[in-house]
Protein backbone atom coordinates (compact mmCIF):
# COMPACT_ATOMS: atom_id res chain seq x y z
CA UNK A 1 0.00 0.00 0.00
CA UNK A 2 2.29 2.80 -1.15
CA UNK A 3 -0.36 5.43 -0.43
CA UNK A 4 -0.44 4.55 3.29
CA UNK A 5 3.35 4.63 3.34
CA UNK A 6 3.50 8.06 1.78
CA UNK A 7 0.94 9.44 4.20
CA UNK A 8 2.66 7.82 7.20
CA UNK A 9 6.07 9.12 6.11
CA UNK A 10 4.66 12.60 5.66
CA UNK A 11 3.03 12.41 9.08
CA UNK A 12 6.31 11.37 10.69
CA UNK A 13 8.23 14.20 9.05
CA UNK A 14 5.65 16.70 10.25
CA UNK A 15 5.42 15.31 13.76
CA UNK A 16 9.18 15.48 14.25
CA UNK A 17 9.61 18.90 12.66
CA UNK A 18 10.02 20.82 15.95
CA UNK A 19 13.02 18.55 16.70
CA UNK A 20 14.99 19.41 13.58
CA UNK A 21 13.32 22.40 11.86
CA UNK A 22 14.13 26.07 12.30
CA UNK A 23 11.68 28.46 13.93
CA UNK A 24 10.96 29.96 10.52
CA UNK A 25 10.16 26.57 9.03
CA UNK A 26 7.95 25.76 11.97
CA UNK A 27 6.02 29.01 11.65
CA UNK A 28 5.65 28.51 7.90
CA UNK A 29 4.21 25.05 8.41
CA UNK A 30 1.78 26.43 11.00
CA UNK A 31 0.63 28.95 8.44
CA UNK A 32 0.28 26.22 5.86
CA UNK A 33 -1.77 24.15 8.27
CA UNK A 34 -4.25 26.84 9.24
CA UNK A 35 -4.77 27.95 5.66
CA UNK A 36 -5.26 24.31 4.74
CA UNK A 37 -7.91 23.95 7.45
CA UNK A 38 -9.72 27.07 6.29
CA UNK A 39 -9.56 25.88 2.68
CA UNK A 40 -10.79 22.40 3.58
CA UNK A 41 -13.80 23.91 5.30
CA UNK A 42 -14.66 26.19 2.39
CA UNK A 43 -14.13 23.39 -0.08
CA UNK A 44 -16.62 21.21 1.78
CA UNK A 45 -19.17 24.00 1.57
CA UNK A 46 -18.68 25.08 -2.02
CA UNK A 47 -17.27 21.98 -3.64
CA UNK A 48 -19.54 19.42 -2.08
CA UNK A 49 -22.61 21.11 -0.64
CA UNK A 50 -22.94 23.78 -3.34
CA UNK A 51 -22.93 26.48 -0.64
CA UNK A 52 -20.69 29.21 -2.06
CA UNK A 53 -19.86 31.33 0.98
CA UNK A 54 -17.85 34.52 0.85
CA UNK A 55 -18.43 35.15 4.54
CA UNK A 56 -16.37 32.50 6.30
CA UNK A 57 -14.39 35.36 7.85
CA UNK A 58 -17.35 35.60 10.23
CA UNK A 59 -16.16 32.40 11.87
CA UNK A 60 -12.49 33.38 11.76
CA UNK A 61 -13.51 36.44 13.74
CA UNK A 62 -15.79 34.53 16.09
CA UNK A 63 -12.97 32.07 16.80
CA UNK A 64 -10.54 34.93 17.40
CA UNK A 65 -12.86 36.70 19.82
CA UNK A 66 -13.72 33.42 21.54
CA UNK A 67 -10.00 33.09 22.20
CA UNK A 68 -9.83 36.60 23.63
CA UNK A 69 -12.86 36.26 25.86
CA UNK A 70 -12.17 32.75 27.09
CA UNK A 71 -8.47 33.28 27.70
CA UNK A 72 -8.53 36.85 28.98
CA UNK A 73 -11.90 37.24 30.69
CA UNK A 74 -12.36 33.68 31.95
CA UNK A 75 -8.69 32.88 32.42
CA UNK A 76 -8.60 29.66 30.41
CA UNK A 77 -5.41 28.30 28.93
CA UNK A 78 -5.34 29.86 25.42
CA UNK A 79 -4.66 26.53 23.75
CA UNK A 80 -7.60 24.91 25.48
CA UNK A 81 -9.85 27.52 23.90
CA UNK A 82 -9.34 25.97 20.45
CA UNK A 83 -12.02 23.28 20.76
CA UNK A 84 -14.23 25.77 22.57
CA UNK A 85 -13.80 28.28 19.75
CA UNK A 86 -14.92 25.55 17.37
CA UNK A 87 -18.00 24.96 19.50
CA UNK A 88 -18.81 28.66 19.74
CA UNK A 89 -18.50 29.04 15.96
CA UNK A 90 -20.74 26.05 15.32
CA UNK A 91 -23.26 27.42 17.81
CA UNK A 92 -23.26 30.77 16.03
CA UNK A 93 -23.58 29.03 12.68
CA UNK A 94 -26.88 27.46 13.67
CA UNK A 95 -29.03 30.62 13.75
CA UNK A 96 -27.06 31.95 10.76
CA UNK A 97 -28.06 28.85 8.83
CA UNK A 98 -31.74 29.42 9.57
CA UNK A 99 -31.41 32.74 7.84
CA UNK A 100 -29.04 31.83 5.05
CA UNK A 101 -30.74 28.65 3.97
CA UNK A 102 -33.71 30.68 2.86
CA UNK A 103 -31.53 32.05 0.08
CA UNK A 104 -30.33 30.43 -3.09
CA UNK A 105 -27.02 30.49 -4.88
CA UNK A 106 -25.46 33.88 -5.29
CA UNK A 107 -27.82 35.42 -2.73
CA UNK A 108 -26.57 32.98 -0.15
CA UNK A 109 -23.04 34.12 -1.01
CA UNK A 110 -23.64 37.81 -0.44
CA UNK A 111 -25.75 37.21 2.66
CA UNK A 112 -22.90 35.32 4.32
CA UNK A 113 -20.82 38.41 3.72
CA UNK A 114 -23.45 40.71 5.21
CA UNK A 115 -23.47 38.61 8.37
CA UNK A 116 -19.68 38.83 8.64
CA UNK A 117 -19.97 42.58 8.09
CA UNK A 118 -22.55 42.89 10.88
CA UNK A 119 -20.22 41.06 13.24
CA UNK A 120 -17.30 43.27 12.23
CA UNK A 121 -19.32 46.41 12.92
CA UNK A 122 -20.64 45.00 16.18
CA UNK A 123 -17.10 44.21 17.36
CA UNK A 124 -16.05 47.70 16.34
CA UNK A 125 -18.92 49.15 18.35
CA UNK A 126 -18.17 47.13 21.47
CA UNK A 127 -15.51 49.44 22.86
CA UNK A 128 -15.67 48.55 26.55
CA UNK A 129 -15.68 44.79 26.18
CA UNK A 130 -13.93 43.93 22.91
CA UNK A 131 -11.83 47.06 22.63
CA UNK A 132 -13.64 48.55 19.62
CA UNK A 133 -11.62 49.17 16.49
CA UNK A 134 -8.31 48.76 18.28
CA UNK A 135 -9.25 45.31 19.47
CA UNK A 136 -7.66 43.37 22.31
CA UNK A 137 -4.51 41.37 22.84
CA UNK A 138 -4.23 37.84 24.20
CA UNK A 139 -1.92 38.80 27.01
CA UNK A 140 -1.97 35.46 28.77
CA UNK A 141 0.12 34.06 25.89
CA UNK A 142 2.98 36.06 27.36
CA UNK A 143 3.00 33.58 30.25
CA UNK A 144 4.46 30.90 27.96
CA UNK A 145 8.13 30.60 27.21
CA UNK A 146 8.52 31.38 23.51
CA UNK A 147 9.91 28.04 22.31
CA UNK A 148 7.28 26.11 24.21
CA UNK A 149 4.52 28.35 22.88
CA UNK A 150 5.63 27.80 19.31
CA UNK A 151 5.84 24.04 19.79
CA UNK A 152 2.35 23.81 21.28
CA UNK A 153 1.07 26.06 18.49
CA UNK A 154 2.64 23.75 15.96
CA UNK A 155 1.05 20.61 17.35
CA UNK A 156 -2.27 22.37 17.76
CA UNK A 157 -2.15 23.40 14.11
CA UNK A 158 -1.24 19.88 13.10
CA UNK A 159 -4.15 18.48 15.11
CA UNK A 160 -6.54 21.04 13.60
CA UNK A 161 -5.51 20.26 10.04
CA UNK A 162 -5.70 16.54 10.72
CA UNK A 163 -9.23 16.95 12.08
CA UNK A 164 -10.18 19.10 9.10
CA UNK A 165 -8.88 16.63 6.52
CA UNK A 166 -9.99 13.49 8.32
CA UNK A 167 -13.33 15.05 9.13
CA UNK A 168 -13.87 16.01 5.51
CA UNK A 169 -12.93 12.54 4.27
CA UNK A 170 -15.12 10.92 6.91
CA UNK A 171 -18.06 13.21 6.20
CA UNK A 172 -17.83 12.51 2.48
CA UNK A 173 -17.59 8.77 2.93
CA UNK A 174 -20.56 8.72 5.29
CA UNK A 175 -24.20 8.93 4.32
CA UNK A 176 -23.88 12.68 4.44
CA UNK A 177 -21.33 12.46 1.64
CA UNK A 178 -23.60 10.35 -0.51
CA UNK A 179 -26.43 12.80 0.11
CA UNK A 180 -24.14 15.68 -0.80
CA UNK A 181 -23.20 14.17 -4.11
CA UNK A 182 -26.85 13.62 -4.86
CA UNK A 183 -27.57 17.26 -3.99
CA UNK A 184 -24.68 18.48 -6.09
CA UNK A 185 -25.98 16.54 -9.07
CA UNK A 186 -29.59 17.58 -8.66
CA UNK A 187 -31.23 19.01 -5.59
CA UNK A 188 -34.81 18.11 -6.54
CA UNK A 189 -33.63 14.68 -7.55
CA UNK A 190 -31.93 14.20 -4.20
CA UNK A 191 -35.09 15.26 -2.40
CA UNK A 192 -37.11 12.85 -4.46
CA UNK A 193 -35.01 9.89 -3.36
CA UNK A 194 -35.36 10.96 0.26
CA UNK A 195 -32.16 12.88 0.98
CA UNK A 196 -32.93 15.47 3.62
CA UNK A 197 -31.17 18.18 1.71
CA UNK A 198 -31.46 20.96 4.26
CA UNK A 199 -30.34 18.85 7.18
CA UNK A 200 -27.40 17.47 5.18
CA UNK A 201 -26.31 20.93 4.13
CA UNK A 202 -26.70 22.28 7.66
CA UNK A 203 -24.47 19.54 9.02
CA UNK A 204 -21.74 20.51 6.56
CA UNK A 205 -22.22 24.20 7.29
CA UNK A 206 -21.81 23.68 11.04
CA UNK A 207 -18.76 21.46 10.56
CA UNK A 208 -17.13 24.05 8.29
CA UNK A 209 -17.92 26.79 10.82
CA UNK A 210 -16.34 24.77 13.65
CA UNK A 211 -13.14 24.16 11.71
CA UNK A 212 -12.99 27.80 10.63
CA UNK A 213 -13.63 29.01 14.19
CA UNK A 214 -10.84 26.86 15.62
CA UNK A 215 -8.55 28.05 12.82
CA UNK A 216 -9.47 31.64 13.70
CA UNK A 217 -8.47 31.10 17.33
CA UNK A 218 -5.23 29.45 16.23
CA UNK A 219 -4.39 32.25 13.80
CA UNK A 220 -4.74 34.80 16.58
CA UNK A 221 -2.67 32.69 18.95
CA UNK A 222 0.14 33.31 16.47
CA UNK A 223 -0.73 36.98 16.01
CA UNK A 224 -1.73 37.86 19.59
CA UNK A 225 -3.59 41.07 18.69
CA UNK A 226 -7.23 40.70 17.61
CA UNK A 227 -8.64 43.65 15.67
CA UNK A 228 -12.14 43.47 14.19
CA UNK A 229 -11.22 44.81 10.75
CA UNK A 230 -8.51 42.18 10.36
CA UNK A 231 -10.29 39.25 12.00
CA UNK A 232 -13.52 39.80 10.05
CA UNK A 233 -11.73 40.83 6.85
CA UNK A 234 -13.15 39.60 3.55
CA UNK A 235 -9.56 38.86 2.57
CA UNK A 236 -9.84 35.58 4.49
CA UNK A 237 -12.56 34.55 2.08
CA UNK A 238 -10.50 35.76 -0.87
CA UNK A 239 -7.41 33.79 0.14
CA UNK A 240 -9.37 30.64 0.80
CA UNK A 241 -11.33 30.84 -2.44
CA UNK A 242 -8.10 31.42 -4.33
CA UNK A 243 -6.52 28.38 -2.68
CA UNK A 244 -9.39 26.05 -3.46
CA UNK A 245 -9.96 27.35 -6.98
CA UNK A 246 -6.35 26.98 -7.98
CA UNK A 247 -5.98 23.58 -6.31
CA UNK A 248 -9.27 22.09 -7.45
CA UNK A 249 -12.78 22.57 -6.08
CA UNK A 250 -14.53 19.47 -4.86
CA UNK A 251 -11.45 17.38 -4.17
CA UNK A 252 -9.58 16.65 -0.96
CA UNK A 253 -6.19 16.99 -2.63
CA UNK A 254 -6.97 20.36 -4.26
CA UNK A 255 -6.80 22.52 -1.12
CA UNK A 256 -3.46 20.95 -0.15
CA UNK A 257 -1.89 21.83 -3.49
CA UNK A 258 -3.65 25.17 -3.52
CA UNK A 259 -2.31 26.15 -0.10
CA UNK A 260 1.24 25.34 -1.16
CA UNK A 261 0.88 27.41 -4.33
CA UNK A 262 -0.78 30.26 -2.49
CA UNK A 263 1.97 30.51 0.13
CA UNK A 264 4.72 30.24 -2.47
CA UNK A 265 3.11 32.90 -4.64
CA UNK A 266 2.53 35.20 -1.69
CA UNK A 267 6.18 34.82 -0.76
CA UNK A 268 7.26 35.59 -4.32
CA UNK A 269 5.01 38.65 -4.50
CA UNK A 270 5.76 39.96 -1.01
CA UNK A 271 6.44 43.66 -1.06
CA UNK A 272 4.09 44.21 -3.99
CA UNK A 273 1.07 44.86 -1.78
CA UNK A 274 -1.54 45.85 -4.36
CA UNK A 275 -0.14 43.73 -7.15
CA UNK A 276 -0.39 40.50 -5.22
CA UNK A 277 -4.14 40.78 -4.62
CA UNK A 278 -4.65 41.83 -8.23
CA UNK A 279 -2.72 38.81 -9.43
CA UNK A 280 -4.59 36.47 -7.09
CA UNK A 281 -7.87 37.79 -8.45
CA UNK A 282 -6.75 37.48 -12.05
CA UNK A 283 -5.51 33.93 -11.51
CA UNK A 284 -8.80 32.91 -9.92
CA UNK A 285 -10.67 34.28 -12.93
CA UNK A 286 -8.36 32.53 -15.38
CA UNK A 287 -8.66 29.23 -13.52
CA UNK A 288 -12.46 29.36 -13.58
CA UNK A 289 -12.39 30.03 -17.31
CA UNK A 290 -9.70 27.66 -18.48
CA UNK A 291 -9.24 25.01 -15.78
CA UNK A 292 -12.34 25.00 -13.60
CA UNK A 293 -11.27 21.78 -11.91
CA UNK A 294 -8.01 23.31 -10.77
CA UNK A 295 -4.51 21.93 -10.84
CA UNK A 296 -5.55 18.69 -9.23
CA UNK A 297 -8.19 18.32 -11.92
CA UNK A 298 -5.50 18.70 -14.59
CA UNK A 299 -3.38 16.10 -12.80
CA UNK A 300 -6.14 13.53 -12.50
CA UNK A 301 -7.13 14.06 -16.11
CA UNK A 302 -3.68 12.89 -17.07
CA UNK A 303 -2.90 10.32 -14.40
CA UNK A 304 -5.55 8.36 -12.61
CA UNK A 305 -4.46 8.84 -9.01
CA UNK A 306 -6.05 9.80 -5.71
CA UNK A 307 -4.45 10.41 -2.33
CA UNK A 308 -7.75 10.24 -0.49
CA UNK A 309 -10.14 7.99 -2.35
CA UNK A 310 -13.66 9.04 -1.47
CA UNK A 311 -15.29 8.02 -4.68
CA UNK A 312 -17.02 4.70 -4.35
CA UNK A 313 -16.20 2.11 -6.88
CA UNK A 314 -19.23 0.83 -8.69
CA UNK A 315 -19.60 -2.93 -8.23
CA UNK A 316 -18.65 -4.65 -11.46
CA UNK A 317 -22.04 -6.22 -11.92
CA UNK A 318 -23.58 -2.77 -12.39
CA UNK A 319 -21.19 -1.81 -15.15
CA UNK A 320 -22.73 -3.33 -18.18
CA UNK A 321 -20.82 -3.47 -21.40
CA UNK A 322 -22.61 -1.58 -24.08
CA UNK A 323 -24.06 -3.97 -26.59
CA UNK A 324 -24.61 -3.12 -30.18
Amino acid sequence: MPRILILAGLGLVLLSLPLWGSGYQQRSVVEFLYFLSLAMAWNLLAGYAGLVSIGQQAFVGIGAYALVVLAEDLGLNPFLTLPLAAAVAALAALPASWLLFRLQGAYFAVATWVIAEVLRLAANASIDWLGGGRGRAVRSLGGFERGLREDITFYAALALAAVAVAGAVWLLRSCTGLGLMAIRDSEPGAQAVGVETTRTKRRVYLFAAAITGAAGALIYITQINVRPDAAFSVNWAAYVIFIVVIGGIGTIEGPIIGTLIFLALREALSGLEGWSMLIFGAIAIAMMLFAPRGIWGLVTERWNIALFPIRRQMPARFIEKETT
Partner: protein
Amino acid sequence: MIVLSTLVSGVLLGGFYALLGLGLSLTFGIMRTVNLAHGDLVVLASFLALAVTQMLGLSPLVSLIVLVPVMFGLGYALQGLVLNRVLKDGMMPAVIITFGLAFVIQNGLLMGFSADRMVLRQGTLETAGVTLLPGLTVGVLPLITLGAVLALMAGLQLLFRYTLIGRAFRATSDDPQIAALMGIDPKHVYALAMGLACAIIAVTGVLMGMRSNFSAFDGPIRLIFAFEVIIIGGMGSLNGVLVGGMILGLSQVIGGALNPSWFQLTGHLATLAVLIVRPSGLFPETIDRS
Protein backbone atom coordinates in the same frame (compact mmCIF):
# COMPACT_ATOMS: atom_id res chain seq x y z
CA MET B 1 -38.20 69.47 13.20
CA ILE B 2 -35.23 67.22 13.92
CA VAL B 3 -37.43 64.21 13.36
CA LEU B 4 -38.70 65.59 10.07
CA SER B 5 -35.27 66.50 8.75
CA THR B 6 -33.95 63.08 9.77
CA LEU B 7 -36.73 61.40 7.83
CA VAL B 8 -36.17 63.62 4.80
CA SER B 9 -32.46 62.95 4.76
CA GLY B 10 -33.15 59.23 5.09
CA VAL B 11 -35.43 59.32 2.08
CA LEU B 12 -32.91 61.31 0.07
CA LEU B 13 -30.10 58.96 1.01
CA GLY B 14 -32.45 56.22 -0.10
CA GLY B 15 -32.41 57.72 -3.59
CA PHE B 16 -28.68 57.03 -3.85
CA TYR B 17 -29.16 53.52 -2.59
CA ALA B 18 -32.02 52.87 -5.01
CA LEU B 19 -29.75 53.93 -7.85
CA LEU B 20 -27.07 51.63 -6.49
CA GLY B 21 -29.52 48.74 -6.32
CA LEU B 22 -31.02 49.35 -9.76
CA GLY B 23 -28.09 48.00 -11.78
CA LEU B 24 -27.74 44.95 -9.58
CA SER B 25 -31.46 44.26 -9.71
CA LEU B 26 -31.43 44.44 -13.50
CA THR B 27 -28.72 41.81 -13.87
CA PHE B 28 -30.33 39.60 -11.28
CA GLY B 29 -33.75 39.93 -12.89
CA ILE B 30 -32.46 38.83 -16.26
CA MET B 31 -29.54 36.52 -15.54
CA ARG B 32 -30.44 35.27 -12.04
CA THR B 33 -26.94 35.85 -10.82
CA VAL B 34 -25.30 38.41 -8.56
CA ASN B 35 -22.38 40.40 -9.86
CA LEU B 36 -20.02 40.60 -6.88
CA ALA B 37 -17.96 43.28 -8.63
CA HIS B 38 -20.99 45.59 -8.77
CA GLY B 39 -19.73 47.93 -6.05
CA ASP B 40 -16.25 48.01 -7.50
CA LEU B 41 -17.61 48.89 -10.92
CA VAL B 42 -19.41 51.85 -9.30
CA VAL B 43 -16.14 52.99 -7.77
CA LEU B 44 -14.39 52.39 -11.09
CA ALA B 45 -16.95 54.66 -12.75
CA SER B 46 -16.25 57.36 -10.16
CA PHE B 47 -12.53 57.15 -10.89
CA LEU B 48 -13.09 57.14 -14.63
CA ALA B 49 -15.25 60.24 -14.25
CA LEU B 50 -12.44 61.84 -12.32
CA ALA B 51 -9.98 61.00 -15.09
CA VAL B 52 -12.33 62.28 -17.80
CA THR B 53 -13.05 65.53 -15.97
CA GLN B 54 -9.34 66.12 -15.50
CA MET B 55 -8.24 65.18 -18.99
CA LEU B 56 -11.02 66.73 -21.03
CA GLY B 57 -11.89 69.50 -18.62
CA LEU B 58 -15.52 68.47 -18.50
CA SER B 59 -17.72 68.71 -15.42
CA PRO B 60 -18.70 65.39 -13.83
CA LEU B 61 -22.30 65.43 -15.10
CA VAL B 62 -21.16 66.23 -18.65
CA SER B 63 -18.53 63.50 -18.45
CA LEU B 64 -21.41 61.03 -18.51
CA ILE B 65 -21.53 61.54 -22.28
CA VAL B 66 -18.24 59.71 -22.45
CA LEU B 67 -18.68 57.50 -19.44
CA VAL B 68 -22.02 55.90 -20.21
CA PRO B 69 -20.97 54.38 -23.55
CA VAL B 70 -17.60 53.31 -22.16
CA MET B 71 -19.18 51.54 -19.21
CA PHE B 72 -21.81 50.01 -21.48
CA GLY B 73 -19.04 48.55 -23.63
CA LEU B 74 -17.19 47.32 -20.58
CA GLY B 75 -20.29 45.57 -19.29
CA TYR B 76 -21.04 44.05 -22.67
CA ALA B 77 -17.50 42.74 -22.91
CA LEU B 78 -17.49 41.41 -19.34
CA GLN B 79 -20.60 39.35 -19.99
CA GLY B 80 -19.94 38.51 -23.62
CA LEU B 81 -16.30 37.54 -23.36
CA VAL B 82 -16.10 36.19 -19.81
CA LEU B 83 -19.30 35.37 -17.96
CA ASN B 84 -21.14 33.87 -20.94
CA ARG B 85 -18.48 31.21 -21.14
CA VAL B 86 -19.43 29.73 -17.79
CA LEU B 87 -23.22 30.05 -18.04
CA LYS B 88 -23.88 26.33 -18.25
CA ASP B 89 -21.89 25.46 -15.14
CA GLY B 90 -24.31 26.88 -12.56
CA MET B 91 -23.83 29.97 -10.46
CA MET B 92 -20.52 29.15 -8.77
CA PRO B 93 -18.15 30.17 -11.61
CA ALA B 94 -19.89 33.52 -12.05
CA VAL B 95 -19.75 34.19 -8.31
CA ILE B 96 -16.05 33.37 -8.14
CA ILE B 97 -15.15 35.24 -11.32
CA THR B 98 -16.91 38.42 -10.25
CA PHE B 99 -15.39 38.08 -6.77
CA GLY B 100 -11.96 37.83 -8.40
CA LEU B 101 -12.79 40.80 -10.62
CA ALA B 102 -13.62 42.84 -7.52
CA PHE B 103 -10.08 42.35 -6.26
CA VAL B 104 -8.61 43.12 -9.68
CA ILE B 105 -10.53 46.40 -9.88
CA GLN B 106 -9.77 47.46 -6.30
CA ASN B 107 -6.06 46.90 -6.58
CA GLY B 108 -5.90 48.18 -10.13
CA LEU B 109 -7.44 51.45 -8.94
CA LEU B 110 -5.09 51.53 -5.98
CA MET B 111 -2.11 51.27 -8.31
CA GLY B 112 -3.53 53.55 -10.98
CA PHE B 113 -4.71 56.34 -8.70
CA SER B 114 -3.27 55.93 -5.15
CA ALA B 115 -5.04 55.17 -1.93
CA ASP B 116 -6.19 58.75 -1.36
CA ARG B 117 -9.83 59.62 -1.07
CA MET B 118 -11.10 61.48 -4.12
CA VAL B 119 -14.16 63.58 -4.83
CA LEU B 120 -15.91 64.83 -7.96
CA ARG B 121 -16.62 68.55 -8.08
CA GLN B 122 -19.46 70.06 -10.10
CA GLY B 123 -19.08 73.77 -9.32
CA THR B 124 -21.10 74.36 -6.19
CA LEU B 125 -23.84 71.91 -7.02
CA GLU B 126 -22.87 69.42 -4.30
CA THR B 127 -23.44 71.97 -1.57
CA ALA B 128 -26.42 73.80 -3.09
CA GLY B 129 -29.72 73.39 -1.28
CA VAL B 130 -33.35 74.34 -1.48
CA THR B 131 -35.10 75.49 1.67
CA LEU B 132 -38.49 73.83 1.85
CA LEU B 133 -39.53 74.99 5.31
CA PRO B 134 -37.74 77.22 7.70
CA GLY B 135 -35.03 74.98 9.11
CA LEU B 136 -35.49 72.27 6.50
CA THR B 137 -33.08 72.52 3.59
CA VAL B 138 -32.78 69.82 1.00
CA GLY B 139 -29.68 69.33 -1.14
CA VAL B 140 -29.97 69.77 -4.89
CA LEU B 141 -27.75 66.78 -5.62
CA PRO B 142 -29.98 64.29 -3.74
CA LEU B 143 -32.96 65.70 -5.62
CA ILE B 144 -31.17 65.22 -8.94
CA THR B 145 -30.34 61.69 -7.89
CA LEU B 146 -33.92 60.92 -6.96
CA GLY B 147 -34.99 62.32 -10.33
CA ALA B 148 -32.38 60.17 -12.08
CA VAL B 149 -33.64 57.03 -10.34
CA LEU B 150 -37.23 57.74 -11.28
CA ALA B 151 -36.29 58.53 -14.87
CA LEU B 152 -34.18 55.39 -15.23
CA MET B 153 -36.90 53.22 -13.73
CA ALA B 154 -39.50 54.70 -16.06
CA GLY B 155 -37.16 54.22 -19.00
CA LEU B 156 -36.60 50.59 -18.16
CA GLN B 157 -40.33 50.04 -17.77
CA LEU B 158 -40.96 51.49 -21.21
CA LEU B 159 -38.14 49.47 -22.68
CA PHE B 160 -39.37 46.20 -21.21
CA ARG B 161 -42.98 46.78 -22.02
CA TYR B 162 -43.10 48.38 -25.39
CA THR B 163 -40.03 47.43 -27.40
CA LEU B 164 -39.15 44.23 -29.17
CA ILE B 165 -35.76 44.00 -27.53
CA GLY B 166 -37.40 44.65 -24.15
CA ARG B 167 -39.74 41.72 -24.70
CA ALA B 168 -36.75 39.66 -25.70
CA PHE B 169 -35.16 40.56 -22.34
CA ARG B 170 -38.21 39.32 -20.46
CA ALA B 171 -38.57 36.21 -22.58
CA THR B 172 -34.93 35.31 -22.01
CA SER B 173 -35.30 35.88 -18.30
CA ASP B 174 -38.31 33.55 -18.25
CA ASP B 175 -36.89 30.73 -20.32
CA PRO B 176 -33.63 31.14 -22.26
CA GLN B 177 -33.99 27.85 -24.16
CA ILE B 178 -37.38 28.72 -25.56
CA ALA B 179 -36.25 32.28 -26.21
CA ALA B 180 -33.54 30.84 -28.44
CA LEU B 181 -36.26 29.06 -30.42
CA MET B 182 -37.75 32.48 -31.14
CA GLY B 183 -34.49 33.56 -32.76
CA ILE B 184 -33.22 35.41 -29.68
CA ASP B 185 -29.56 34.86 -28.87
CA PRO B 186 -29.62 34.60 -25.05
CA LYS B 187 -25.92 35.36 -24.80
CA HIS B 188 -26.37 38.61 -26.69
CA VAL B 189 -29.31 39.52 -24.45
CA TYR B 190 -27.25 38.80 -21.34
CA ALA B 191 -24.40 40.92 -22.64
CA LEU B 192 -26.80 43.77 -23.43
CA ALA B 193 -28.28 43.48 -19.95
CA MET B 194 -24.86 43.70 -18.35
CA GLY B 195 -24.02 46.61 -20.63
CA LEU B 196 -27.21 48.37 -19.57
CA ALA B 197 -26.46 47.68 -15.91
CA CYS B 198 -22.98 49.14 -16.34
CA ALA B 199 -24.41 52.21 -18.07
CA ILE B 200 -26.59 52.71 -14.98
CA ILE B 201 -23.49 52.09 -12.88
CA ALA B 202 -21.80 54.98 -14.73
CA VAL B 203 -24.59 57.32 -13.60
CA THR B 204 -24.38 55.88 -10.09
CA GLY B 205 -20.63 56.33 -9.95
CA VAL B 206 -20.80 59.98 -10.95
CA LEU B 207 -23.65 60.94 -8.61
CA MET B 208 -22.20 59.05 -5.65
CA GLY B 209 -18.75 60.44 -6.37
CA MET B 210 -20.19 63.94 -6.15
CA ARG B 211 -22.08 63.17 -2.95
CA SER B 212 -19.12 61.95 -0.92
CA ASN B 213 -15.49 61.13 -1.40
CA PHE B 214 -14.44 57.67 -2.52
CA SER B 215 -11.40 55.44 -2.52
CA ALA B 216 -10.28 52.29 -4.28
CA PHE B 217 -11.59 50.02 -1.54
CA ASP B 218 -15.14 51.36 -1.25
CA GLY B 219 -16.54 48.78 -3.66
CA PRO B 220 -17.43 46.02 -1.21
CA ILE B 221 -19.56 48.23 1.02
CA ARG B 222 -21.39 49.58 -2.04
CA LEU B 223 -22.08 46.02 -3.17
CA ILE B 224 -23.46 45.21 0.26
CA PHE B 225 -25.74 48.25 0.25
CA ALA B 226 -26.94 47.43 -3.27
CA PHE B 227 -27.58 43.87 -2.21
CA GLU B 228 -29.53 45.02 0.84
CA VAL B 229 -31.66 47.24 -1.34
CA ILE B 230 -32.74 44.32 -3.48
CA ILE B 231 -33.18 41.98 -0.55
CA ILE B 232 -35.55 44.48 1.05
CA GLY B 233 -37.21 45.44 -2.21
CA GLY B 234 -37.65 41.89 -3.49
CA MET B 235 -35.28 40.09 -5.77
CA GLY B 236 -35.58 40.90 -9.43
CA SER B 237 -38.19 43.56 -8.77
CA LEU B 238 -37.28 46.88 -10.35
CA ASN B 239 -39.97 48.87 -8.54
CA GLY B 240 -39.01 47.35 -5.21
CA VAL B 241 -35.62 48.98 -5.61
CA LEU B 242 -37.06 52.41 -4.81
CA VAL B 243 -38.71 51.28 -1.59
CA GLY B 244 -35.73 49.11 -0.71
CA GLY B 245 -33.42 52.09 -1.07
CA MET B 246 -35.68 54.30 1.06
CA ILE B 247 -35.98 51.73 3.84
CA LEU B 248 -32.22 51.19 3.90
CA GLY B 249 -31.55 54.94 3.87
CA LEU B 250 -34.10 55.60 6.61
CA SER B 251 -32.87 52.83 8.87
CA GLN B 252 -29.28 54.00 8.53
CA VAL B 253 -30.14 57.63 9.20
CA ILE B 254 -32.38 56.78 12.15
CA GLY B 255 -29.77 54.44 13.60
CA GLY B 256 -27.09 57.07 13.09
CA ALA B 257 -29.22 59.69 14.84
CA LEU B 258 -29.51 57.44 17.90
CA ASN B 259 -25.80 56.60 17.98
CA PRO B 260 -23.35 57.65 15.24
CA SER B 261 -21.56 54.29 15.27
CA TRP B 262 -24.83 52.46 14.56
CA PHE B 263 -25.29 54.06 11.15
CA GLN B 264 -24.42 51.02 9.02
CA LEU B 265 -25.36 48.46 11.62
CA THR B 266 -29.04 49.40 11.72
CA GLY B 267 -29.18 49.15 7.93
CA HIS B 268 -27.77 45.64 8.03
CA LEU B 269 -30.15 44.68 10.83
CA ALA B 270 -33.13 46.00 8.86
CA THR B 271 -32.06 43.76 5.98
CA LEU B 272 -31.70 40.73 8.19
CA ALA B 273 -35.10 41.50 9.72
CA VAL B 274 -36.69 41.53 6.26
CA LEU B 275 -34.95 38.25 5.52
CA ILE B 276 -36.45 36.71 8.63
CA VAL B 277 -39.96 38.06 8.17
CA ARG B 278 -40.29 38.07 4.38
CA PRO B 279 -37.44 36.20 2.75
CA SER B 280 -38.65 37.07 -0.73
CA GLY B 281 -38.57 40.80 0.01
CA LEU B 282 -41.38 43.30 0.32
CA PHE B 283 -42.22 43.33 -3.39
CA PRO B 284 -41.36 39.95 -4.81
CA GLU B 285 -40.80 40.10 -8.55
CA THR B 286 -43.17 42.72 -9.76
CA ILE B 287 -41.92 44.74 -12.68
CA ASP B 288 -40.36 42.49 -15.16
CA ARG B 289 -43.21 40.16 -14.47
CA SER B 290 -45.85 42.71 -15.41
